């Protein structure tokens, strides 16, 4: 299978598949309720020109839908996690723990912090799912 570019519609669809076939994710995220925007913004180290919005509807251990959003006002998700491309690349390749990314200010999050702090294992399983995608990055 050919590599899928990060970030893209194909990539987020792959992630949806990975999550929905992962028992470990289903168990870890069984209490998670809330959809997400993952916002990948340009940063000076890469060729990214525009901000990408990936939408994922995550609900009790499953991903109900996932796609790339052109109009950021199309949805009002419960959580918005944002950061520059280079930081996201490190997250989805498991080089930066998402919680560490938030605590160090490399990523920002809006949403219910209680839900986030309760579900750190779900975030870890999601990162593991990301690493199973054969992704292509701009720096490669």
């Amino acid at each position, binding site marked *: 299978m050919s590599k899928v570019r990060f970030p893209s519609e194909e990539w987020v669809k792959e992630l949806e598949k990975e999550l929905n076939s992962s028992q470990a994710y289903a168990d870890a995220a069984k209490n998670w309720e809330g959809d997400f925007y993952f916002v990948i913004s340009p940063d000076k180290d890469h060729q990214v020109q525009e901000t990408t919005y990936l939408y994922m509807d995550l609900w009790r251990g499953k991903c109900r839908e996932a796609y790339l959003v052109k109009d950021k006002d199309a949805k009002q998700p419960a959580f918005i996690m944002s950061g520059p491309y280079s930081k996201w690349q490190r997250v989805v390749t498991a080089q*930066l*723990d998402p*919680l*560490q990314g*938030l*605590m*160090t*200010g490399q990523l*920002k*999050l809006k949403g*219910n*912090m*209680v839900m986030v*702090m*309760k*579900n*750190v*294992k779900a975030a*870890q399983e999601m990162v593991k799912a990301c690493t199973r995608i054969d992704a292509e990055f701009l720096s490669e």
Partner: protein
Amino acid sequence: MNGYTGKLLFVNLTTGEISDRELNRAYAADYLGGSGLAARYLYDWLDASTDPLGPENPLVFMNGPLDAAGAPVSGRFAVCARAPQTGLWGEAIAGNFFGPELKYAGYDGIVIRGQANAPCYLHITPDGVEIRDAQRLCGMTTFDAGDAIRAERDDPHLVTACIGPAGENLVKFALILTSSARAGAKKGIAGRCGMGAVMGSKNLKAVAVRGSKHPLQHKLHLHDPARFRAAMTGAQHFLSDDMATEVLRAVGSSGALDYYGLLGDVPTKYWTSGTFDYGKVSGNLLAETILTGRATCHACMVACGRKVERAGDYILPHAEGPELETLAGFGALILNDDLHLATYIGSQCDSLGLDSISTGSTIAFAYYLRELGVLPPGDLNGIELVWGDGNGALQLVRDIAHRRGFGAVLANGSRELGARYGVEGLAVQINGMEVAMHDPRAATGMAVTYATSPIGGSHNHSDYFMVETSGRPIDELGIETHDRFACAGKAASIARHQDWRTVNNASVTCFFPNPPAQAMVEMLAAATGYDITTQNVLSYGERIWNLKRAINLKLGYCARRAEVLPELICRPLLDGGTEGHVPEFDLMMREYYAYRDWDWMTGKPTQKKLRALGMQDIAADVWKSP
């Protein structure tokens, strides 16, 4: 004196003598304030013959140059003395509003000597200082005693530092609790080292303080107010956008338990397991179910305090909820997954006046010894200690505070408990101090931090696990992040972090939120006029760190016997987030000693090091022939 009132209050409870004395400016310039400045005074007054529970052990309350200046998270104070639990340097840091209020009353600190012949409390206002009768407060809880004093004096503005029954009964890990009647005030807990027992040994139930009611008189002289304001504004802006602020506000310190549990940081089943449903006893579940409000210390924009009016059927005094250490100690450490019960046991520790870390750990050790069959059931007077059932722990908390039944044995801590049954090595303590609720197998730096802490196994002199687990370096101070399991090459960062936290404990500022070090240093310099920069600030911390080591050496500290990692922490865990790792302790300690420029055999700082830190007189003492 900029940043200071320039005055200390001296009280002798034996003679009733009360006097004001000028603050030693040279000491303040070198040791700043809080536990640093207290250490400099106590260095002169303590020696190996000082009985920690005798009238000759001075109890020192000390605030810092940032207290009452409005700097973020700066409303703290230190309370110091020779510690009854360890026989070593003792210090505890607490928040609430006590430190700033003492400053408003005109004092940088209080030195209490002697022993009253009847229970008393100290009443400090701008109108004067008096020693008052506390007979009717005897046996009261920490919270009730504070309320009773405010009612008796008809003065709701009094901020109190009280002991509970545990302090009166000289429990070796008795705490001092500060409280005030302000809406939304968070309790202040001076928990570690048994400072409550020192207070109890003096027959001193409480210190009650109120500053001037006139706002202009609150004005503290700062060296450069404009520079101070600029740095303060920068720090406030940073904190308002900081995720850690948001997390602490939403879920309190104990909201990290789910995450730390995953990493293996939370000691479980008395340090012998890595598996527990950590989310069942954590600040996150608490926030979703029983949280009724938030509470704060002076000048804090975080408000991490948890207000919990009731946990199930249990009513909590002053609605004060738990911290991380408390929920870990009465949760995972004894496999108790009942959040309500763990919360309530913690509130009983506060109320009866017990340090919840030492209490939880000593009780959990009893559970473990019971499981091993080392502790015969007959010794427990009918109390059942079964993993997962916290009711035995609740009963023991009450018995410890009153030194009743088996509680009288536990009241001396886990080292003595182990020694009683011939298994001292199994107690997870360092120098008699129960190790805090962060497992060095999950973040190896804590092994060195605990072993070299001047008070024993404490995280209050460096929460280096935070650097290791959050990945958050302090670049301007050369404090780096490393892989949490790595051992080699970490010691310098650990030592620098200890030095920085020592500056925090001298300033006196909270560890939870972390404004940029640059801003904190600017505020210190602008408040005091001292030439403090990010380049030299760690030398202040290092000087104080070495001073505390010198005090311990004076008190008989033997480094090679003392700096040992508890046996249970040296055993790899096959389950959980530590992934079988154990710290390479000897390697890390050798590197640490090399960085510190300490002599391995004696544990002494070298003469060269002490002289470089401007501590000529102390160098001469430390190295004088026996």
